[in-house]
């Protein structure tokens, strides 16, 4: 059981001693049972920290945002930043460390265990509540959640409202941490890893294309998936191509011939280009936190593209993102035994 009180005390202590400049955590927001990410920089505010199945967002994103803010600042604050991290968040931090995005002593990871379950899926819960709104969701052992609707409290089986990625999660407690709250979870008894990607793969080629064409066609190109992803930290995204400086001397030909990998029109071909490029850029880096899928306004199952590559990396190259901060990344390493049969 995670003792949130201990987490609050420790957070307050870190701030009092000046060891960290802030704590990135979850607090009760205005979105009902869903927690809002917050940065706490005063010890008294540490009492607002919470940890429950409504803490869905991946806080590693805010480490990246802080890093960018510090890089742009004239008086950067070099003190480390602490982050409350569940299993997937801690893997994201591990990938960022592996890529030297920041250094190990610049981040303090306050790991929280998912109690053998995970976080809830907003869509699944909304479907189950049929229009009513729940005020609170709490962990209740390894198989269920306690959901409070109005004044009545009911126990709901975890598998019914848990996020898909939590069902498939292989490491529900943070492997990389400075302090760990709750017991580390060794085994998981839910769906098999990569179950969703395997199910999608079982369909025929025509069916798969029909599905994906439908998804790519609906994509608004709002880039919410990119904004929410802690791994999409490039200062300029390859699909934007905004770095061309247009001066009065720039000729029409120069403007016309600049490389545009992806047009801004939201046609299915362009959107396919965007999503496949993103999937490739996340190959071996995606930690399956499921944020892209959660924030998608048109419900594109973006997780599938990333988990498919995660599955290939795991099965063919025995590579798991966020497993080891000293390993060479998936695409910057190779072995002689890599598959060769597909090459003529």
């Amino acid at each position, binding site marked *: 059981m995670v003792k949130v009180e201990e987490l609050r005390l420790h957070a307050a202590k870190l701030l009092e001693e000046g060891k960290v400049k802030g704590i990135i955590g979850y607090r009760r927001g205005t979105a009902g049972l869903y927690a809002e990410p917050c940065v706490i920089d005063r010890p008294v505010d540490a009492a607002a920290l919470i940890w429950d199945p409504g803490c869905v967002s991946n806080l590693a994103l805010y480490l990246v945002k802080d890093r960018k803010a510090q890089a742009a600042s004239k008086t950067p604050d070099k003190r480390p930043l602490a982050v409350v991290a569940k299993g997937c968040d801690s893997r994201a931090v591990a990938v960022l460390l592996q890529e030297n995005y920041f250094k190990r002593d610049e981040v303090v990871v306050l790991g929280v265990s998912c109690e053998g379950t995970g976080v809830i899926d907003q869509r699944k819960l909304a479907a189950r509540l049929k229009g009513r709104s729940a005020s609170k969701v709490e962990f209740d052992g390894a198989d269920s959640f306690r959901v409070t609707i109005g004044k009545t409290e009911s126990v709901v089986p975890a598998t019914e409202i848990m996020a898909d990625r939590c069902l498939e999660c292989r490491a529900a407690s943070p492997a990389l941490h400075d302090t760990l709250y709750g017991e580390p979870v060794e085994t998981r008894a839910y769906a098999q890893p990569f179950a969703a990607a395997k199910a999608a793969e079982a369909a025929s080629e025509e069916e*798969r294309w029909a599905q*994906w064409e439908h998804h790519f066609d609906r994509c608004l190109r709002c880039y919410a998936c990119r904004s929410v992803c802690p791994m999409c930290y490039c200062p300029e995204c390859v699909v934007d191509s905004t770095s061309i400086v247009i001066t009065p001397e720039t000729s029409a030909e120069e403007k016309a011939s600049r490389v545009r990998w992806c*047009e801004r029109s939201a046609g299915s071909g362009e959107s396919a280009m965007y999503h496949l490029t993103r999937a490739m850029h996340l190959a071996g880096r995606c930690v399956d936190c499921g944020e892209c899928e959660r924030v998608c306004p048109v419900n594109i199952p973006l997780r599938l593209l990333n988990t498919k590559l995660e599955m290939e990396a795991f099965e063919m190259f025995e590579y798991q993102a966020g497993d080891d901060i000293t390993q060479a990344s998936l695409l*910057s390493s*190779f072995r*002689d035994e890599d598959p060769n049969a597909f090459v003529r």
Partner: protein
Amino acid sequence: MLNPTKAVAALDTDFEPKIVAFLCKWCSSAGSDLAGVSRLQYPANAVPIQVMCSGSVSPMYILSAFKKGADGVLVSGCHPGDCHYMKGNFYARRRLYLVQKLLGFIGLEKERFRMSWVSAAEGVKYAQVVDDFVRDIKVLGPQRRLKARR
């Protein structure tokens, strides 16, 4: 008057696929050159693009070629162990394996993306690879799935 439906059908029967071939400068490009100077007869559907190494082929090149209407994409480099840059083709093999799996996953016909190892001495093999590729793609017909509509 020309019947538009018949015109389309007629086009499909003598469909000539457009294949974009990314050939590494040190082996495959020289191999294709050898096929040429040896006067081997092979289909002229492959548009060769010389790259410095198969390892320098970004997945975006491949996706972009499909987006612009290529019916097939071939990436060809030196045999494993023969790379001019020692290990570029090993990186390429790992990366393009993932590209191939991803394209298959979203439902692009798997025959449309192909990789081959062709050394500078293998003009015959290059001709064979292109010949096979063109034959397979003629069966599939034009690539419409990833092509951007305008």
